[in-house]
Structure formats: structure tokens, C-alpha cells
């Protein structure tokens, strides 16, 4: 009797243990049935899984989203969007590496991971579907003709961020400038004086010298505008007097720029804790009146930055300007974009034509309007030319507030900036557009348009070297001459020479 009881208890324990282990691993597969039903029997509904990073600004897609339904109806597909949390592209890469392919995948353009997808033959050539995807064909062959793979085919749609325009430049406390009777600095000397005044003349009026001139963002801040002022020409690689390609720290603009930055750092005009700043933290220090200058994306952020600033400082006013000019009148700030997102169709996709048509739709004006404005009559109505948003209906499908777009609009195919999209209700419309105009006027071109293969291979390692030497030189842990010499030697040895060699070839061919 006792033995039976023992056996019973032991078995029970095992059952419980087994369930507690497997319970977590149970897959929750829900067979989604298209709510619209099959309207056309001859065209079956194909499920399409799209794995993407989405964007920080995008909200999640809700079940029964009407925009997704509209797209489903159009192509008789069943679109299932899987957004990895936090816009973390590593998770997409890992999903692909583990063989868990979606039908459509969005990764980073010009990364070794994405490149490997093409080389490993995981992606479908888009050229095969050009007949039914006119927008895709036009954009790829006219705008991004340099993004073909080695075999001359297009394997994905690149969305290059900040390609034709940019929103990033210097933003500052206009109210501090006014208070201290300063003018927006034009030259590097003016800039130095303004920063010094921000540091020493107590612009926040709390009786203490506890403010800094400028802060920036990790890992190494956004201080390249100093080098552009001293004559650095390109964002990626430079040319020496003989026409040979060199890294920018070997260019004549680097040493004077570094000395200037070093002076700012030593005198405490640069916030020493900028190394710890993520974007939120940097903005926080701006709102808290700790710093006068930040390097920030503007455009649609103009009203957000100023709004937050005024919550803490009712007098606060946001200013933005061109970066300061160097001795020869050069200036520049944000580089022309080279990288971004890359949306492609995988070999696993059973309806590649429909997938291609979907991508084609997303980059068409019609598609852009659908994800920005919504469906006419539901999400918005038109009064002549004026668009009236129905915020209540838009909220049901998780459009972002204040006239901003649907979750599908962000990041993968376009961002509002790329086409100067601003909701009709935007408060600081004029200034938002003006900030883009200013930032784009000083956008810095690249020597070559594409990212060379060797940079994909070694880029991270040599960039890492540069980051460390830059900070060491800035903080004075190493003399600038010695730093540049050491960096040069190591940078070239760790793969830099191979990168330069390839860039030289590409440059010579394009000449």
C-alpha cells in the first residue's frame, strides 16, 4: 500500500515538473482568419509575415487594424507584422541566422549581416517582379542604382535615412542668448565666446556657475562640425594633395580641429558627462538648464523640444542655427546618409510577387498617404484642400498623436523627414521646415556613395579604435600629435588599409 502511494507521488511530481518546464516553451500559434473572407475564390489569401524593427516613434499595431486590413484586401494577403522591441536590429539578425525566416524582412542597409543574406542566397531578386512593381523599379533604378548586388540585381529596397535632407544641427537656448545679449555665433571664435559666456555668466540666473556650453551624445559626441569648419570636405573619407584616399584624422583639418575641441574641453565648456548621455539624457540636461547647446535632430522635434523646455523654464526658447564657420569660411554638420533600413523578400516566401507588390505599394504616394492620413472618410476628411484629422478614429488604429502617422509609416520605408511630411496640425510648422532647410544646407557629402565591402568587414573595429583615441585626445590623456600617429598606425593595420584600398578603386572608377 505504502509502495503504491510512493509510486503515485513520484509520478505526480514528474508530471508536474515536466509541465513546468515545457509550459513556457509552448508555442502560441493562432491561425488568423481573414475577417473579410474570400472575396475572390481564384486568388487565395497568402499569409505574409513581415519582420521589422519598426521605429521608436511608432506605436504597436493593434489586432484588427483597419490599415492592415485595407492592405490585406488590396493584395489578398494576410499581413502579419512582427516588430522587434526597441528597434533592435540584432534580434532580426539572430532570427535570420537561426533559420527562422519571415516572408519579408527589414534589416540594416549596408551591414555585414544584410550583406550575408544576399551572398548566402536567402533573398529573392526584385528584378523578377519589376513588371508589376513600377514604383519599386523606378526608385531602385533611378535613385538607388548603386545598391545592386554583385550580380547586378536588386535584392531589397534600401531606405537611406537622411539621404537627401537632414534635420540635425546645433540647437541652443535662444533665451540665454537674449539674456546675455549675445548674437548667434558665425565663426569658431564667436562660438567659443558664446560657450564661455554660457559657462561663466550664469545664464540660468541661479547665482552659481553650474552650467556648460555644449553637451552631446554617446559614444563620442557629435563634434565633427569643428573639423568641417577647419576644411574637412567629406563625411566618409578624405583626399590628400596627391588625390589619395585617407581617413579623416590624417587630413589637415584634424589637428587644428582637435586642438580647438581640446581647448573647449579643458576650459570646461564641453559637458564632461556627455559620454554618458543617451538622447533622452542629453535632452534632459538641456531642459534642466545645465547646458546651452545640444546637437540634435530638429524638424518635428522643434515643438517637442521647445514644449518640454518650457515645462521647466516658462521663459525657455529654442534656437537653431548653422554650425560655426572656420577660418576659410567652411562649415558643415550632418553627413549625407549612407545607411538605413533594407527591406527584402526571403526565399521562404510563397507569394513573392504579392510581397513585392506590397513593398511597391508602401513606397508609392498612395501607400504613403494611407499610412499617414489613413482611410478617407474614416481617419480623415477633406474640406477642399484642407485635411481634417479624426483623432478618435485614428487612435483606434494606433496612429501617433497630433496627426502623425500609423505604426507602419515609421522607419522601414520612409520617415516623415524624407518627404517633408508634417501634419496639418503641427504647431511650429514654419520653424520645423526652416530647421530642415538650415540643416540640409550644410549637409556634408560623401566621397563615395556606397559602403565598401571592406568597411562592412572591418569598419566597426577601426571605428572603435578611432572612438577611443578621439576621447583620449579630447580629454588630454594623450598628446594630439602622438595620438594621431598611433591611431594612424593601428587603424591602418587593423583593416583600415584594406578599406582605403577599396575606396580608392571605387573613387577612381567614379571619377
Amino acid at each position, binding site marked *: 500500500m505504502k509502495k503504491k502511494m510512493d509510486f503515485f507521488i513520484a509520478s505526480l511530481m*514528474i508530471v508536474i*515538473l*515536466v509541465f513546468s518546464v515545457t509550459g513556457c516553451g509552448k508555442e502560441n500559434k493562432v491561425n488568423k482568419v481573414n475577417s473579410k473572407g474570400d472575396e475572390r475564390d481564384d486568388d487565395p489569401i497568402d499569409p505574409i509575415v513581415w519582420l521589422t524593427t519598426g521605429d521608436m516613434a511608432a506605436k504597436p499595431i493593434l489586432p484588427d487594424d483597419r490599415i492592415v486590413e485595407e492592405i490585406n484586401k488590396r493584395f489578398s494577403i494576410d499581413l502579419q507584422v512582427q516588430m522587434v522591441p526597441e528597434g533592435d536590429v*540584432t534580434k532580426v539578425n539572430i532570427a535570420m541566422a537561426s533559420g527562422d525566416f519571415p516572408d519579408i524582412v527589414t534589416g540594416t542597409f549596408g551591414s555585414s*549581416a544584410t550583406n*550575408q543574406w544576399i551572398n548566402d*542566397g536567402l533573398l529573392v531578386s526584385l528584378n523578377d517582379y519589376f513588371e508589376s512593381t513600377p514604383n519599386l523599379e523606378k526608385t531602385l533604378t533611378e535613385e538607388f542604382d548603386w545598391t545592386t548586388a554583385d550580380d547586378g540585381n536588386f535584392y531589397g529596397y534600401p531606405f537611406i535615412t537622411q539621404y537627401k535632407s537632414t534635420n540635425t544641427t546645433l540647437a541652443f537656448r535662444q533665451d540665454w542668448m537674449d539674456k546675455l545679449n549675445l548674437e548667434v555665433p558665425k565663426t569658431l571664435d564667436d562660438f567659443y565666446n558664446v560657450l564661455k559666456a554660457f559657462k561663466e555668466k550664469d545664464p540660468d540666473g541661479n547665482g552659481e556657475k553650474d552650467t556648460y556650453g555644449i553637451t552631446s551624445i554617446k559614444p563620442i559626441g557629435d563634434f565633427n562640425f569643428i573639423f568641417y569648419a577647419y576644411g574637412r570636405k567629406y563625411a566618409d573619407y578624405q583626399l590628400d594633395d596627391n588625390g589619395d584616399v585617407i581617413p579623416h584624422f590624417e587630413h589637415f583639418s584634424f589637428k587644428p580641429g582637435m586642438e580647438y575641441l581640446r581647448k573647449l574641453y579643458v576650459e570646461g565648456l564641453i559637458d564632461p558627462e556627455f559620454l554618458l548621455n543617451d538622447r533622452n539624457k542629453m535632452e534632459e540636461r538641456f531642459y534642466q538648464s545645465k547646458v546651452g547647446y545640444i546637437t540634435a535632430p530638429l524638424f518635428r522635434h522643434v515643438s517637442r523640444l521647445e514644449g518640454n523646455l518650457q515645462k521647466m523654464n516658462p521663459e525657455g526658447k529654442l534656437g537653431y542655427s548653422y554650425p560655426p564657420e572656420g577660418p576659410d569660411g567652411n562649415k558643415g554638420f550632418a553627413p549625407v546618409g549612407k545607411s538605413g533600413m533594407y527591406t527584402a523578400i526571403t526565399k521562404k516566401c510563397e507569394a513573392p510577387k504579392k510581397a513585392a507588390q506590397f513593398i511597391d505599394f508602401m513606397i508609392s504616394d498612395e501607400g504613403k498617404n494611407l499610412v499617414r492620413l489613413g482611410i478617407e472618410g474614416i481617419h480623415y476628411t477633406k474640406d477642399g484642400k484642407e485635411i481634417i484629422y479624426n483623432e478618435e478614429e485614428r487612435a483606434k488604429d494606433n496612429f501617433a498623436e497630433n496627426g502623425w502617422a500609423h505604426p507602419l509609416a515609421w522607419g522601414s520605408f520612409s520617415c516623415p523627414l524624407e518627404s517633408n511630411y508634417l501634419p496639418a496640425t503641427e504647431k511650429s510648422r514654419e520653424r520645423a521646415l526652416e530647421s530642415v532647410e538650415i540643416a540640409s544646407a550644410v549637409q556634408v557629402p560623401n566621397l563615395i556613395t556606397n559602403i565598401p565591402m571592406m568597411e562592412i568587414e572591418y569598419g566597426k573595429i577601426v571605428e572603435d579604435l578611432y572612438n577611443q583615441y578621439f576621447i583620449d585626445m579630447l580629454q588630454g590623456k594623450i598628446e594630439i600629435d602622438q595620438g594621431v600617429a598611433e591611431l594612424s598606425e593601428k587603424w591602418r593595420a587593423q583593416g583600415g588599409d584594406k578599406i582605403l584600398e577599396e575606396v580608392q578603386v571605387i573613387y577612381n572608377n567614379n571619377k
Partner: protein
Amino acid sequence: MFMEAKVLEKKKTRKTEIRSNNLCRYFLKHKYLYFMLLPAIVYYIIFHYVPMYGAIIAFKNFNVSKGILGSDWIGLANFKQLFQMDKFYQVIWNTLTISLKRLIVGFPTPIIMALLLNEVKRTTFKKTIQTAIYLPHFISWVILGGMLVNLLSLDNGLVNGIITAFGGSPIGFLTDDKYFVKTLVVSMVWKEFGWNTIIYMAALLGIDPQLYEAAIVDGASRWKQTIHITIPCIMSTIVVVFILRLGGLMEAGFEQIFVLYHPGVYKVADIIDTYVYRTGLAEGKFAMASAVGLFKSLINFILLVLANKMSRMAGEEGVF
């Protein structure tokens, strides 16, 4: 030594038959206990041993479409590239020094804390302290990192506020590479020592009270009791924990460092994991990442075996 081994070998073969019989009987006798062990064994096989075959991509040119088994063998090329990296020796050095510092500061702290708490007679006080010190263990580094940045900030952090209030000048705990590692070590110990104290508290509970009673009769003071009864009784626990800690010496705390570090402190705080994350994993170079993992595991394994051997030589039990 050698002779002895040979003799043992002979004895073994002779006794094998009888032994296997004994073994069977032993298993049968305790069959329910072994039965209950099964799920754990199954779990380890499925989730820990089977996935181990994936480690072979360290020796392969990993190609997603060909899969783990189908990718081409490239021998030690990944390791070669790893050892040729300019910063590799620096990051190994950092990993080891940070880990050792953590061991030196972090290992005795929970023991001392447990001994102190053991002397506390009022249960409520003891429980409160215990709860308070182990709570930080449950906060993730991502959150704690944000809190540390605020607490230790140069211009409005609490800690520097106190320092300046006493007339000192503010210290860049997180920005100055002279202080960064110290901050890392102290914050890590602070986060984990309460949790580790629990193990020792449990060991202390297992000490036979009669030993203390006998000691009191003999006139031993509290201090003498601690030295001659408490510590020897928990010694085996201390040794086991120490061996396990040595086995994890190559883990210098990726999560914590990743949240707090920046290029200004790469020289002192960039460890193997962070470096490989930046230059390899984030770029989708999985073969490289797994080569590093294998390399680290190998060193950990050697350390573990050595520590275990040493403890056995010193007359303690060891973990295997």
C-alpha cells in the same frame, strides 16, 4: 603514486562484477528518487547538452543558408583573427583584473555579513536587514545603471552633493577612468552581496547547537565560538562557493559594464564581452562570437578544475 594506481586498477577489474550487482541493487532500492531525477536530466540534455553542438560554428565559416552542420570548416581561422585583434590582450587583461577585484572585495563581504547577522538576536531586525540587502539583486542593471548615472552625476548627483557639502571637489565616478573600475566593483558588490549572504545564512543554520553549548560550558567567548565553531563549520560551503566563483572568472559582468561604460573608460573597463559585442555580435558575426565564448569557457573550465584540485589537496571536499 603510480604503483598505487596500478594496484587499484587490478582491484577494480576483479571487483567489477560484484560492484555492478551492487549498483543495480542500489538503483532499485532508490528507484523513486532516481525516477524523480529523470526530468532534470532530460532538461539538461535537451537545453544544455544538445545545443552545445552549435559551438562548432567557432571552427566554421558560418553561413545561414547552409546551417550549422553544413557550413564550411575553416579550422582555427576565427581564433587566429581573434588573437590578432589589436585590443584583444587589453580586454583580456581588463576582464581578469576587474573580475579579480570583484572577487577580492566581493567574496568576503557576504561571509562577514552572514557572520554579523548570525550574532543578531532580534529576529525582526535581522529579517529587515536581510531583506534590505538582498533587494538590489532583483533590480536589473539597465534600471540600476540609470539610477547610478543620476546618483553619481558630477553636478546634481547625490553622492557628489555630499562630497561638495563637506568641502571636497566632485569626483567623476563614471567619467574618470581612475574611479570607474572602483565604481563598478563597489556597485556590483553592493547589488549582489545580500543575495550571496543567504547561502551562508543557510549554512549557518545547519550548525549543530550542541557545539555551541559545549563551547559555552568550556567558557569560550563569542569571538572564540566564531573562530572555532562557526567558521570551520561553514568552511566547506565557503570553499564550494569560491571554486564556483573562480570558474566564472572570465565573466566580468557584461550587463553592468555595457550599461555604464563609454569610450572614455575603454582602456580600463572594456572587457572581452563588450568588445566582441561591439565589433562582432552587433554586426552579425556569429562564428566569431562563438569562438570567443568557447575560448572563455575553456579558461573557466581550466580554472575550475585547478581550484577544485587545490581544495581537495587542502583537505576540503570540492564540487566534484
